[in-house]
C-alpha cells in the first residue's frame, strides 16, 4: 500500500481493493493530503488535483464516484466547476461535496444553485467528513445497484423479444430488431407499405404422401423439411411470414431494406432445393413417394405490419406480390423455380446459363392481367 507521503508526489492514494473513488479538488496540498488520508482510512481510492481545469481533465479521463470540491480554486470557482459537472449528463449524477471555509448564507445558496449535493465546512472535522461521505457512498451504491438491476431486466426483456422474433427471422435480423427497440423508426412498428420480394416454397406431392404413411412419420418428415428450408431462408436473411401445411412464405426487403432482395430470394430458392436434395434422397431410399420443392418468386408493393386482434396478432405481409408468388408456386414442378418478369429482370445476371425457360405471359388465377413467367431449374 502506498504511504501517505507518496501523495504529494503522485496525487493518488489507493488502498487495496478500494471500490469507491473520490476526486479531491483543492489547491492547498496540506488540505488535500488531509482529506485523502481520512478517505483512504475508510478504504476509498483518492485522486487529488489542484484546480478546476485539472479536475475537468481527471473526470473526463475516469469519472470518480464522488468529488470533494474546494470553493476557492486558483483558476475558477468551485461553484463553476460544480455547475459544469451538473449540466453535463455524463457527470450530472456524480455527487459533489463543496468544501469551504466560507460560512455565509450566500455561499451556501450559490452552492445549492450550482447543484452541490452536500457541504463541508473548513476546518474539516474528521467525523463529519466521514459521515457525509459514507452517506453519499451508500446512496451512490444503492443507485448503482438499482441501475444494475434495471440493466439486467432490460437485457432479460430484450432476450425474450429476441427469442420470440427468432421464430420468424434470422438470428442476425433478430439482433438488429432488438437493437432498434425503443427507436421511433422501429421496423416492427405500425403497418406500412413496402416493396417486397416474396418467395413461396411448397412440397410437391406431399399431400398424397401423407395418405400412405403414419401420422408420426408425416410430422417427422415435415419437421425435417421445414428445418432445411427455414435454415436456407435465414442464411439469406429472409423473414418468415407463414408456415402452413407444407408451404412456407419468406419475405425479402422487409422489415429492413435489402437492395439485393431479388437476388437473395433466388439464392434462397437455390439453397432450399440444394439443401433438400439429400433429405429427398433419404426419403426415396426409404420407399417414400418421390417428391421435391416447387418455388415461386414475385415482387411488388405490399402492406407489412402486425395485423390481427388484441388477442391474436401476426406479423403479416399482404399484397399482389404475395398472391402472385403463391400462384407461381402452385404451377411450379418439383425442383423448379417460377419467377415473375420483374424478378427475372432483376436476377437475370446471376441465373445459370441454359437453365431459364421463358413461359410467356401467363394468366394466373385471381389476376386480371397476365404475368410474364420464367422457369428456372437451379
Amino acid at each position, binding site marked *: 500500500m502506498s504511504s501517505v*507521503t507518496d501523495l504529494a508526489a503522485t496525487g493518488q492514494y489507493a488502498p487495496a481493493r478500494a471500490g469507491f473513488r473520490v476526486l479531491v479538488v483543492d489547491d492547498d496540498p496540506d488540505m488535500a493530503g488531509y482529506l485523502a*488520508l481520512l478517505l483512504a482510512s475508510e478504504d476509498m481510492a483518492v485522486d487529488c488535483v489542484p484546480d478546476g481545469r485539472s479536475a475537468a481533465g481527471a473526470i473526463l479521463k475516469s469519472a470518480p464516484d464522488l468529488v470533494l470540491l474546494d470553493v476557492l480554486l486558483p483558476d475558477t470557482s468551485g461553484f463553476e466547476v460544480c455547475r459544469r459537472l451538473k449540466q453535463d449528463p455524463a457527470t450530472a449524477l456524480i455527487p459533489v461535496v463543496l468544501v469551504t471555509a466560507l460560512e455565509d448564507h450566500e455561499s451556501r445558496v450559490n452552492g445549492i444553485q450550482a447543484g452541490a449535493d452536500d457541504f463541508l465546512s473548513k476546518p474539516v472535522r474528521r467525523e463529519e467528513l466521514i459521515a457525509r461521505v459514507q452517506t453519499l457512498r451508500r446512496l451512490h451504491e444503492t443507485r448503482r445497484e438499482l441501475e444494475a438491476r434495471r440493466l439486467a431486466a432490460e437485457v432479460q426483456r430484450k432476450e425474450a423479444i429476441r427469442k420470440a422474433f427468432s421464430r420468424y427471422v434470422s438470428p442476425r435480423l433478430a439482433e438488429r430488431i432488438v437493437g432498434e427497440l425503443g427507436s421511433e423508426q422501429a421496423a416492427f412498428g405500425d403497418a406500412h407499405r413496402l416493396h417486397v420480394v416474396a418467395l413461396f416454397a411448397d412440397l410437391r406431392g406431399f399431400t398424397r404422401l401423407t395418405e400412405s404413411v403414419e401420422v408420426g412419420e408425416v410430422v417427422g418428415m415435415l419437421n425435417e423439411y421445414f428445418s432445411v428450408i427455414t435454415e436456407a431462408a435465414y442464411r439469406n436473411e429472409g423473414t418468415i411470414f407463414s408456415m402452413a401445411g407444407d408451404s412456407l412464405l419468406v419475405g425479402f426487403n422487409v422489415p429492413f431494406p435489402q437492395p439485393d432482395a431479388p437476388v437473395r430470394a433466388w439464392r434462397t430458392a437455390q439453397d432450399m432445393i440444394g439443401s433438400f436434395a439429400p433429405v429427398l434422397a433419404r426419403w426415396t431410399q426409404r420407399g417414400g413417394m418421390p417428391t421435391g420443392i416447387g418455388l415461386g418468386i414475385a415482387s411488388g408493393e405490399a402492406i407489412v405490419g402486425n395485423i390481427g386482434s388484441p388477442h391474436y396478432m401476426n406479423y403479416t405481409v399482404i399484397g399482389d406480390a404475395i398472391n402472385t408468388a403463391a400462384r407461381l408456386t402452385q404451377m411450379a414442378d418439383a425442383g423448379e423455380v417460377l419467377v415473375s418478369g420483374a424478378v427475372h429482370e432483376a436476377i437475370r445476371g446471376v441465373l445459370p446459363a441454359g437453365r431459364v425457360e421463358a413461359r410467356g405471359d401467363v394468366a394466373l388465377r385471381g389476376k386480371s392481367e397476365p404475368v410474364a413467367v420464367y422457369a428456372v431449374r437451379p
Partner: protein
Amino acid sequence: MSAYKVKVDKDLEDLIPTFMSNRRKELDTLRVALAAADFEQLRQLGHRMRGVGNSYGFDDITDIGKLIEEGARSGDKAALEKHIAQYGDYLSRVEIAYE
C-alpha cells in the same frame, strides 16, 4: 517562555513534516505580502490558514488565520503586523505530541 503544545492524531504523523514546512513558507510569504501591502494575498493566506489549521489539530493556526483574514479585509496593517509576528512566535515554539 513556555511552548505551545498541540496534540495531533497519530495517523496524521506522516503528513506533519510537510505541513509544518509549508507553514514556515507561509510565514515568509505573509511577511513579504505585508511589506508589499498586498492585502488580497494576505486575505487569501489567512483564509487558507483558517481552513487547514484546525483540520490538523492546530486550533491556534485557524484563530490567527482568521485574524489575518479580517485584518487584510479592513486594511489594518498594524494589526496584521501583530498577528503575523504572533504566528512566527507560535511556529517557533509549537511542540507536537502524537496520540
